[in-house]
């Protein structure tokens, strides 16, 4: 049969259907003919286009008739595919199909209803469990697992007692999908049947009881790999569901079980490479319990799956310094995600002997990895870590991390750190060394810093001013004041920040020119500084900025006014009508505890952005009175965004208790 006779070549039939306008009369029949094409590509494009036809009810009825054509397997499958894509419109016809005289049709109906996954199909499917045909019943129970609901769960649980193993199996799988474990004794009984074992383990993982863990551990000892993996999968699930308090209990049971297995390590290493993510997750839990350092590399490699990162880090941290050394010695052999995870774990696993290996890593590792290595160097407590860390202050991406690491290292090696920093400053290695010097050196470093504040290079002047403000208030104020009049923007910013940190009676007046600086970064820093030092005399300047078109300035102004306790109603109203949503949110959080803030929140419950609506809901929950309840309820009914909904429903709950 050639349904599109004017197009002899497959390619042309394919294109003809692709270009078909779904709105033309007769399109339905052309596409139905396409479902019967000998080429699967043509059938596929026909099915895809059918999903987009306007009157989906007619389409559904027509497709159901195709399902009835015996001998046309390709067409029937394509029709099923199209039906599954029709959504609600296919529901009625499919439910009717569940009582078709031909069991094949009934099975199709159940399969497609499962794919649709609509709860309204629940009751008809539960009834269809009475079907005389076994294949139909199996399909129905699988579908129930996808459709969900209370009745489905109960019906599936009842099926577990069915004499037919195939049905018990599909019921177990369905319950696993629904995450509804039956009572423990029922699952335990099913575990003895080798045909059901794997699925029974899946369900067992959903049971948060130690008895379940114990039974899972028996599975770990199995000689059959697939059973072991099923057990590990169950363990993975159980741990994700358990609260952290129960985690220790679970691990104790696992450890006891693993100790009885001479080759536990090898088994876990193998399982860490399993196809199934939950198996790998379980293997990580088991490896953490076992604490076997030789597993460090395969454990780190599990980080190739992003979702396992948390578990990988937890497990690595349990492998002790020996595990740390294994990682450090093999960093180059690891894949890049594994390397990143290993580096993060290393921060807690290093000791004084690790410096050389860490430095070798710095030679070639990627930037983000190097940042972690820097942290690790700080924790080695070794004087050998000082020079490389000081050298790293030159690198803008790592300077912050290196400064902090030096601070940590100074705890055990103060003199060495100080000497190295002084030398770096003396040879003008990098301005980051100045900040580090001030932090570690304190008052004795002041003369050197003062000198630096008069340097010809603005970079050094800027660094010195900020550094001094962390060491000595008096000197800091004096230098900051001079810096505010500096010709270099960079130095003015440092002066502003220092002034913000130090405050004082004159701070507001001194900061005024900076609020009007020609450079917007200086202005921004000044706004923040005014808020930081409590310069209430600058409030009017800030109020003007609240209406500034630059969102960054406006947000900063609102936040600063709020810190000053001056986020008065007028300010909030101005901010709330700013076109930038971040400014609106700043207004909401600034007014959070005031009456004005609450009425602002009420007016913003219908804002087009979800994050603004959520912020409004939070204010109502925190500060609204019972009179806000109705508005919050209404908003909740209309809310489509999940996170905003969550916040709103919290608010409703809190409001109804007032």
């Amino acid at each position: 049969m050639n349904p599109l006779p004017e197009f002899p070549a497959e390619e042309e039939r394919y294109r003809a259907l692709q270009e078909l306008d779904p709105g033309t009369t007769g399109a339905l029949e052309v596409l139905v003919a396409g479902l019967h094409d000998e080429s699967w590509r043509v059938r596929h494009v026909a099915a895809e286009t059918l999903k987009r036809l306007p009157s989906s009810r007619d389409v559904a009825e027509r497709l159901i008739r195709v399902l009835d054509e015996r001998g046309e397997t390709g067409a029937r499958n394509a029709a099923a595919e199209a039906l599954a894509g029709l959504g609600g419109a296919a529901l009625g016809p499919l439910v009717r199909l569940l009582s078709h005289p031909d069991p094949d049709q009934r099975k199709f109906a159940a399969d497609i209803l499962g794919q649709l996954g609509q709860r309204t199909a629940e009751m008809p499917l539960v009834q269809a469990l009475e079907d005389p045909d076994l294949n139909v019943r199996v399909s129905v129970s699988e579908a129930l697992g996808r459709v969900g609901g209370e009745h489905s769960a109960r019906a599936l649980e009842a099926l577990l007692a069915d004499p037919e193993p195939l049905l018990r199996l599909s019921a177990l799988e369905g319950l696993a999908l629904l995450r509804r474990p039956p009572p423990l004794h029922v699952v335990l009984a099913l575990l003895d049947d080798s045909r059901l074992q794997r699925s029974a383990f899946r369900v067992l993982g959903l049971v948060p009881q130690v008895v379940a863990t114990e039974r899972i551990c028996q599975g770990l000892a199995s000689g059959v790999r697939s059973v072991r993996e099923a057990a590990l999968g169950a363990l993975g699930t159980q741990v994700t569901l358990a609260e952290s308090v129960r985690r220790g209990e679970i691990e104790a049971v696992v450890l006891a079980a693993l100790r009885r297995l001479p080759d536990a390590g090898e088994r876990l290493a193998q399982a860490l490479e399993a196809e199934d993510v939950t198996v790998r997750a379980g293997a990580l839990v088991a490896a953490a319990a076992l604490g076997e350092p030789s597993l460090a590399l395969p454990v780190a490699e599990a980080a190739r799956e992003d979702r396992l990162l948390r578990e990988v880090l937890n497990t690595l941290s349990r492998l002790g310094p020996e595990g740390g050394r294994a990682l450090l010695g093999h960093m180059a052999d690891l894949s890049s995600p594994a390397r990143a995870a290993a580096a993060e774990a290393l921060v807690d696993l290093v000791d004084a002997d690790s410096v050389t290996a860490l430095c070798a890593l710095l030679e070639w590792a990627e930037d983000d990895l190097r940042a972690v290595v820097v942290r690790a160097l700080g924790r080695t407590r070794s004087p050998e870590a000082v020079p490389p860390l000081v050298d790293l202050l030159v690198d803008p991406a790592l300077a912050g991390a290196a400064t902090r690491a030096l601070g940590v290292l100074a705890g055990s090696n103060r003199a060495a750190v100080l000497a190295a920093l002084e030398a770096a400053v003396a040879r003008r290695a990098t301005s980051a060394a100045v900040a580090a010097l001030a932090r570690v050196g304190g008052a004795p470093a002041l003369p050197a810093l003062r000198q630096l504040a008069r340097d010809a290079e603005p970079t050094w002047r800027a660094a010195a001013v900020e550094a001094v403000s962390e060491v000595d208030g008096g000197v800091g104020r004096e230098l900051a004041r001079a810096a505010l009049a500096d010709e270099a923007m960079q130095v003015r910013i440092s002066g502003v920040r220092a002034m913000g940190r130090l405050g004082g009676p004159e701070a507001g007046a001194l900061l005024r020119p900076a609020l009007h600086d020609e450079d917007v970064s200086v202005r921004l820093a000044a706004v923040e500084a005014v808020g930081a030092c409590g310069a209430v005399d600058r409030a009017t300047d800030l109020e003007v900025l609240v209406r500034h078109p630059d969102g960054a300035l406006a947000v900063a102004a609102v936040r600063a006014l709020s810190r000053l306790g001056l986020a008065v109603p007028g300010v909030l109203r101005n901010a709330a009508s700013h076109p930038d949503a971040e400014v609106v949110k700043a207004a909401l959080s600034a007014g959070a505890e005031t009456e004005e803030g609450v009425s602002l929140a009420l007016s913003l419950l219908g804002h087009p952005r979800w994050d603004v609506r959520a912020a409004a809901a939070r204010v109502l929950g925190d500060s609204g009175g019972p009179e806000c309840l109705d508005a919050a309820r209404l908003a909740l009914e209309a809310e489509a965004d999940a996170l905003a909904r969550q916040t709103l429903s919290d608010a409703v709950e809190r409001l109804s208790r007032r």
Partner: protein
Amino acid sequence: MTRFDDGRPEMTLEEFRLLRDHVYSHCGILVHEDMKFVMERRLWPRLEALGLMDFGAYHRYLRYDAQRHAELEAAVESLTTHETYFFREPSQLKAFCDELLPILEKRNGRTRRLRLWSAGCSSGEEAYTLAMLLKDSRRFDDWDVEVYGTDISRRVLTLARRAEYGPSALRATSADLLERFFVPVGNNRVRVRDEVRAWVSFGHHNLLDETGSQLVPRMDVVFCRNVMIYFDLAARRRVLRIVRDRLVPGGYLLLGHSENLLNLGADFELVHLRGDLVYRRPELPGLTGGEGR
């Protein structure tokens, strides 16, 4: 003082959504809800580098700071997975060598010119692999051959140009290939031989950037493997439209193993090779060559 000395800031769900949406609109990468933990970990070093206290401040930084463009790149950099290695997905590469290369040799026989694109090339392993396979086939020895590797991450491009690799990148490379195409540089590491490097060049390109893609020359084959797995449907569609435009009519698109073009419309046709499924930009009407079914 930052908070890093004791604990690091946690990312609230709201901050997560705002950051995620921001990243998504820039490069199509969709970070799933269950990846909040991963995002938090990967962005911590950024907060640290910038001296910011929490992720709310980081979001404002990305929105308003003068350095925001550079920082967004840095953020995307840390969020993307760059995992790759030489000779990844061997069965596909075999089909490429055994079935597509003869077709390409015939098709382009007149111009003796061949252009391949490794789109989302990460640290360059894939691009070099392709050049090595071309060399190995001996079909293109005196042709004008160019393999382009592009990626959104500048950092991986630096590594790609350096062309030095360690054991992890070589885990699927046989001793024989290692011998022929690499030179040892000590410390368990090797460098790709110059004659291979001569065929490969690298550049920065966001696959979602239509304007930028004008800089990419017309390609005979595009490898875009394991890149779009992080994209949602809309972003995938956009990338595919751009890729299609960059392909010569009749040119091929090869995706990663777990990827396919179902539901993505009909810009490509499926070609069943003996060893693999690949996609092809349709020939211009009237020019259908007889090759490759």
